[in-house]
């Protein structure tokens, strides 16, 4: 008897490491790419680290397909769009439960969108992207009279605190009425701000401590700012419980440390900075773990068209023609990118491989400069924040344009100083790392419009093609998806590049190291880590 007990204990001890191992294998550890979330409120989320949490924890009426990025049913099982393109009717999925146990119904949807429309909530631009074309937006966000420091503020118009265009039809049906037909509305609904939380769950709750009450494949188990955030699998997830049972996202501000932690076996997924790439590619084991995703982005130079030098299209064109984009991608970026000569990144239906308005031509650039009154070359300055990679890119640009007699000086300051000066139109050019908010060409045209992001586009309203671009964008926005719509957006691209309204440099590629034990699709084509799509053996 005694012996048998001993044997049992021994067997158990032998099995213990296996048990522990098995348990660990369903945990995935990674790190926030930039810093850490400042909020866990989906309706106030605005930075990539917050989006990472929201994309894994919450869902909206529609979500995007991880491969095609097209809208697919999520909390809405199906929907109908009225013939005039104004009314979207969503049929909600039956039997979906929130983390608090309550069942999804139309009231939750109404509650969530009303909350998103509340200006007191925070500064999420996704609220505007989702709701600005929904009926009632003007009442929810009454335009504030302009204010400057030191001047007494006029009494603000009280916001409606609800968005009238979102209505409960019956318990499981919701309608959203737009103020004008907008084709990209469904895609915009997939933005993190469009998620549905349980009715009343936000009242008096500190989301930073608890995480939001959503319906997604994971819920926030704990968050210790400065340390880590832990997600646990939602076993009741309507699409089936995920393979990965626990995901730990650590706060590691230094990217080099993230890579070292991966090499030490402590992290399963990390982003790789270009400077580490050559070393990683040279290492057999590490290079096998490389995982590349082309991001929908356009890293470009935005121009102050009010500036006397940059206001001349010949100067802009000469600069653009003098840049050796391929050399920059090959050297500074170690291949993490695709040279950009237009607006749209590869992956969008409007991306045109043959479009090449700026073939590198030093002689032509010199001739243009001479024509513009700078036969002996020109000295220009470009501003940027202190992000390391982009400053190395700008220095490489400066090196390649020097051949054409252009002296390009980089002035790098803190981000808040840079944005302030850009808004005040006191610089000649500014470097922009623009990642698309949603996969529709319309989102790229924001860079060309004076009133979509007024604060950063200096003189874009006064340029002679402004009216033409504005009209075409207005047309394209409400046209049904297809070749005709694409043709309009390609026309916009052609006009913008003829006038050199921006100088595109490259489309980004995000490179990560992923532990080979993680199968499936750990990173979706939007560049987001989605633990639900990881398959474990």
């Amino acid at each position: 008897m005694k012996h048998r007990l001993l044997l049992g204990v021994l067997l158990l001890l032998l099995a213990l490491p296996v048990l522990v191992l098995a348990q660990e294998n369903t945990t995935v550890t990674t790190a926030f790419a930039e810093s850490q979330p400042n909020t866990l409120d989906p309706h106030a989320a605005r930075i990539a680290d917050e989006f990472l949490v929201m994309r894994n924890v919450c869902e909206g009426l529609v979500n995007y397909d991880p491969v095609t990025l097209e809208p697919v049913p999520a909390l809405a099982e199906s929907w109908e769009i009225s013939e005039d393109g104004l009314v979207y009717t969503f049929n909600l999925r039956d039997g979906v439960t929130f983390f608090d146990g309550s069942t999804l119904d139309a009231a939750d949807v109404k509650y969530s969108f009303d909350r998103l429309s509340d200006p007191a909530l925070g500064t999420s631009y996704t609220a505007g992207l989702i709701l600005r074309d929904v009926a009632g937006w003007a009442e929810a966000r009454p335009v504030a009279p302009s204010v400057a420091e030191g001047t007494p503020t006029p009494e603000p118009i009280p916001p409606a605190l609800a968005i009238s265009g979102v209505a409960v039809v019956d318990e499981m049906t919701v309608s959203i009425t737009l103020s004008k037909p907008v084709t990209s509305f469904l895609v915009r609904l997939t933005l993190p701000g469009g998620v549905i939380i349980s009715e009343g769950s936000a009242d008096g709750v500190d989301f930073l401590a608890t995480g939001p009450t959503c319906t997604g494949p994971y819920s926030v188990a704990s968050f210790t700012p400065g340390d880590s955030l832990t997600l646990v699998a939602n076993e009741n997830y309507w699409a089936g419980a995920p393979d990965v049972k626990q995901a730990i996202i650590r706060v590691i501000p230094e990217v080099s440390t993230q890579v070292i932690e991966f090499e030490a076996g402590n992290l399963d997924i990390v982003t790789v900075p270009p400077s580490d790439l050559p070393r990683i590619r040279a290492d057999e084991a590490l290079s096998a773990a490389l995982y590349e995703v082309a991001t929908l982005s356009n890293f470009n130079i935005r121009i102050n068209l009010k500036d006397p030098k940059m206001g001349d299209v010949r100067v802009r064109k000469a600069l653009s023609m003098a840049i050796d984009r391929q050399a920059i991608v090959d050297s500074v970026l170690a291949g993490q990118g695709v040279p950009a000569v237009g607006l749209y990144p590869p992956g969008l239906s409007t991306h045109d491989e043959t479009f090449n308005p700026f073939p590198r031509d030093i002689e032509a650039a010199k001739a243009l400069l001479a024509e513009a009154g700078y036969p002996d070359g020109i000295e220009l300055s470009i501003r940027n924040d202190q992000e390391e990679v982009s400053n190395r890119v700008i220095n490489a640009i400066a090196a390649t344009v020097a051949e054409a007699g252009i002296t390009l000086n980089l002035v790098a300051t803190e981000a808040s100083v840079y944005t302030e000066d850009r808004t005040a139109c006191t610089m000649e050019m500014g470097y922009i790392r623009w990642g698309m908010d949603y996969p529709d060409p319309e989102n790229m045209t924001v860079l060309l419009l004076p009133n979509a992001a007024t604060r950063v586009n200096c003189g874009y309203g006064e340029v002679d093609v402004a009216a033409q671009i504005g009209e075409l964008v207005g047309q394209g926005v409400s046209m049904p998806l297809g070749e005709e719509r694409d043709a309009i957006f390609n026309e916009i691209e052609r006009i913008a590049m003829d006038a050199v309204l921006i100088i595109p440099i490259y489309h980004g590629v995000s490179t990560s190291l992923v532990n080979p034990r993680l199968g499936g699709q750990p990173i979706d084509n939007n560049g987001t880590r989605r633990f639900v799509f990881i398959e474990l053996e």
Partner: protein
Amino acid sequence: MTRYLVSRIVQLLPTILGIYLLTFFMMRILPGDPAQFLEGDRGDEQSMAETRRRLRLDEPILVQLAAYLGDTLQGDLGRSFITNQPVSDMIGRAFVPTIQLALTATTIALILGVPLGVVSAVRQNSIWDALSRLVALVGVSIPVFWLGLQMQVIFGVQLKWIPRISGYGIDERLILPAISASLGMIALLTRITRSTLLDVLNQDYIRTAKSKGLANLRVLTRHALVNALLPIVTVWGTSLAGLLSGALLVETIFSWPGMGRLLVDSIGARDYPMIQGLVIAFALIYAGINLLIDLFYPFIDPRIRY
């Protein structure tokens, strides 16, 4: 003694107020706007205006000052612009890791730096002296950033002696950041111990003690070292205060959630309430440690009395 304490604390109040006002106006003179930072590239004019109103940046600057100062006097440091969490909570959370790291690092520095300095003074111009001078030189000149990453690769990836190389915890994760943070201090303490001890060793009373026939060790500990202690304690204390206001680089490389990172992030984002709160905390830390050092002096040097 009590009178001395009270007067020191009373003197502190105008200092803190001055620092508070200076920070308040300096932050607003500095270019950069918190609302701009929050809005980033995406916000339009309308959301900018909403943000400015929400953060009360649209009010006249003196009204802002009165509101801030009023709240501060009632012990309310306000909420962070970025996280909307109470500033005092955030400082409290960052203070614990900071004090743990600072105390560990200064202890290591004390244990290594003082003996190295002693050896180097007693065996002046010997190989030990040269060695300790080399340590001091390396300590002040090696960039912490480089050293930290190298140690991570060597001890974490290659030797695998330290399984977890970054992050917060009172376990193996404390080792590398503490060593990194202590290095500069070891150098400083070695140099200061060596030079003051050399000074003391040349004094008449040391010669007297030696001629009395006292053992060398006793001369060193009872007569020389005690008299050399004053500058050592002073240097140690100010270094501790420096580390308590955050060892930014070490905290960044090792993901240590301390005050240094909090301060730099807050300045970058122009998070006025957070900066204001941190500056007060740092002023109190410096003043507190200076006071403690001053109170400690009479125990070392009986000629000092308060």
